[in-house]
């Protein structure tokens, strides 16, 4: 569907409103403050949010209905509320086909990633992670003074399992984000299983954390969850989040799956009452509505295909996304691209060294949002470019 630039800007630009990103970018923060409004909140003011890999639709009607019903127990601790924290753990266990004792809850998977670094690394046992990959584990390692071995992704943006296996020797923890954020690529089930077996043999004390935050968005049939591996090995565990396909980033629900003894370590370190009772109710409702997640996956797959085609048509290489975001070789610094988009009301992903000079991460919103964002992005990129190596034989040209 063509979107004329004029109607598009009419729809998304708050014009000269003092809170618009355009105003802030053009006149600076001081002018913003002088205009008599509160501190700038770029996200609140932006028209389209493609910067945080969120589900643009939120959790859906079933979950919101349950959330609202839970209002009556908002004053009770999450163990006393109905439904309770414990019931959420059971619902997750059912969904993943494990026992409740194989599940540990977190305030988002973020909390569990940090606990994993605490539990399994030390000053003499470093963290092995991808470069680039989700930064939370290495941030935690740095906060704890733990060494980090960063293993660059391969030329297709996949985690380099061969190099990571070598780096895993004597390491405390290997962080495997699958699909990998920000490169969006997935590792086949077979490769993950081989990797786990190899590390178990070559460095049996090394733990492996497989972060499946984007699990529900994968469409590649070669992928499979590592939950069975986690149940098999005491040093292997999987984290998941309801912040992505479940649309609950604002509600803070994540979980880990592994052997009972492994999960007990996480339980000990978790924040007391790390689930709020509204999220508990919404999450249980959502887990009981798999058709909703199917629909969200289909919606994302369509918008992802549209956006991938859009960038390819402009002549830009896009890595094979199995998530709700794209990693695009824009051939220019991510910071520059991000700022130019933000000035026009579109927020895109942050910098991901070491690929920040040439790649940008763009989250997938609704088709409508992607069409509108496309107009801005095309303008920022200056239209099509000479096809880079990856798209040299691509016959599709910009329309």
């Amino acid at each position, binding site marked *: 569907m063509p979107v004329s630039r004029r109607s598009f800007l009419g729809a998304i630009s708050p014009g000269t409103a003092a809170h618009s990103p355009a105003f802030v970018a053009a006149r600076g923060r001081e002018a913003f403050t002088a205009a008599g409004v*509160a*501190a700038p*909140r*770029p*996200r*609140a003011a932006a028209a389209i*949010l493609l910067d*945080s890999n*969120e*589900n*643009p*639709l*939120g*959790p*859906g*009607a*079933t*979950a*919101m*209905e349950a*959330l*609202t*019903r839970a*209002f*009556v*127990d*908002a*004053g*009770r*601790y*999450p*163990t*006393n*509320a*109905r439904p309770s924290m414990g019931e959420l753990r059971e619902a997750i266990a059912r969904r993943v086909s494990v026992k409740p004792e194989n599940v540990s809850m977190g*305030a*988002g998977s*973020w*909390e569990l990633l*940090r606990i994993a670094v605490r539990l399994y690394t030390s000053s003499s046992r470093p963290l092995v992670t991808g470069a680039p990959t989700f930064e939370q584990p290495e941030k935690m390692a740095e*906060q704890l003074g733990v060494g980090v071995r960063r293993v660059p992704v391969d030329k297709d943006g996949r985690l380099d399992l061969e190099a990571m296996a070598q780096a895993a020797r004597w390491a405390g923890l290997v962080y495997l984000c699958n699909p990998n954020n920000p490169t969006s690529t997935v590792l086949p089930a077979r490769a993950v299983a081989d990797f786990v077996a190899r590390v178990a043999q070559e460095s049996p004390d090394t733990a492996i954390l497989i972060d499946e935050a984007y699990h529900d968005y994968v469409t590649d049939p070669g992928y499979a969850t590592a939950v069975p591996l986690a149940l098999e090995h005491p040093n292997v565990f999987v984290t998941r989040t309801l*912040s992505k396909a479940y*649309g*609950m*980033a*604002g*509600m*803070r629900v994540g979980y880990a799956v592994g052997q009972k003894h492994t999960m007990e370590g996480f339980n*000990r*370190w978790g*924040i*007391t*009452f*790390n*689930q*709020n*009772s*509204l*999220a508990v109710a*919404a999450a249980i409702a959502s887990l009981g509505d798999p058709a909703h997640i199917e629909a969200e996956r289909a919606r994302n797959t369509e918008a992802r295909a549209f956006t991938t085609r859009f960038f390819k048509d402009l002549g830009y290489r896009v890595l094979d996304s199995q998530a709700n975001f794209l990693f695009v070789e824009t051939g220019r610094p991510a910071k520059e691209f991000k700022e130019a988009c933000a000035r026009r009301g579109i927020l895109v992903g942050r910098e991901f060294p070491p690929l920040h000079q040439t790649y940008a991460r763009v989250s997938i919103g609704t088709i409508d949002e992607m069409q509108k964002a496309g107009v801005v992005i095309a303008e920022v990129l200056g239209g099509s470019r000479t096809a880079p190596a990856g798209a040299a034989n691509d016959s599709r040209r910009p329309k």
Partner: protein
Amino acid sequence: MSFTRRAFVKTVGIGGASLLATRREAWAALFQAPGSARPPRPLLLHNNENPLGPGEAVLDSVRRALGQGGPAGRYPWEDVAQLHEAIAEKFGASPENVVSGCGSTQVLRVAVQTFTSPVKPLVAGQLTYEECAGYADLIGTPVRAIKLDRALKLDLDAMADAAKGAGVVFLNNPNNPTATLLSGDAVDAFIERVHSIAPDAMVLIDEAYHDYVTDPSHRTQAARAAKDPRVVVARTFSKAHGMAGMRVGYAIGHPETIKRLNWEGPNALNVAGIVAATASLKDQARLQRESARNTEARKFTIDWFSKAGFASTDSQTNFVFVDIKRPAKAFRDACREQGVLVARDFPPLEKSHVRVSIGTLEEMKRAAEVFGRVLGVKAAAA
């Protein structure tokens, strides 16, 4: 109550003005006794919760903020900034004086994490809120547990003496589970003394029950904390604000302290909690009503135990600590049999004392009947 999707959209969605009446009715129905298939639950007098919750106005602000659900799918980091502004405004401080967490539990843990170590112990009451000592055990920080005095108050002299070389001195005021308060003057003098004995020690004051205090000698240390790099005050929305299920707490401190306490960032905060807390802060009248309600029910409960021959401490909180002259466990088990939950054991006083949270006056009257039967008190005495 059956709640169809259609009704939900009308209730929770951004319906037109014509839907307003329907919406109001459906909204009110949310707060009526739940008519679900679940069995009635016991009286929950074991976790020091506000039995009324945050109230409809606060929850209505959450409903409005979440709309049809889209905002629940967004990371709420910018909303955290708004919450910090609201908290700062309440204390006449700046947002640089504020850090928030997933309940005050997260804030307390981070404080222990940040300011103690295997060679910088935690000083705490022997019988006080356990979060700090529990976390100290986890991270290998030694705990100096200081006995309470005869009035079951934190022993400030002994705690100050123990502060030398400590990383954190934890003061829960009023103190959970003993319900007792230390006066503003006593806490002021204590802080000065700790500063002179242990200039590097952080005085961590947990004022979770602040809004329930009626003793006029009480003073918050929040204003001091904002200026003093060695004092930090923790607060929670779980008690008088009635938001235990929504997980928001915060600390007030010097900007340098707050920077260090921001160790985990805002990642554990949820959008509903943030919105509710921000709205709740702006309704001081509700807090005063809640305090008055609690004070009345608390007085009833203390008087009831007193007439039955059991002394309570001078409670300045939403719970009472009662000398029932028998083990808490037997009492607790017998009460549970009759549909009333009271708190866990609190060693070393678990053989004689029990903690009972204050529910509504009506709930306390019902609970008193059960207590009377369990304790063998004649109705006339009560």
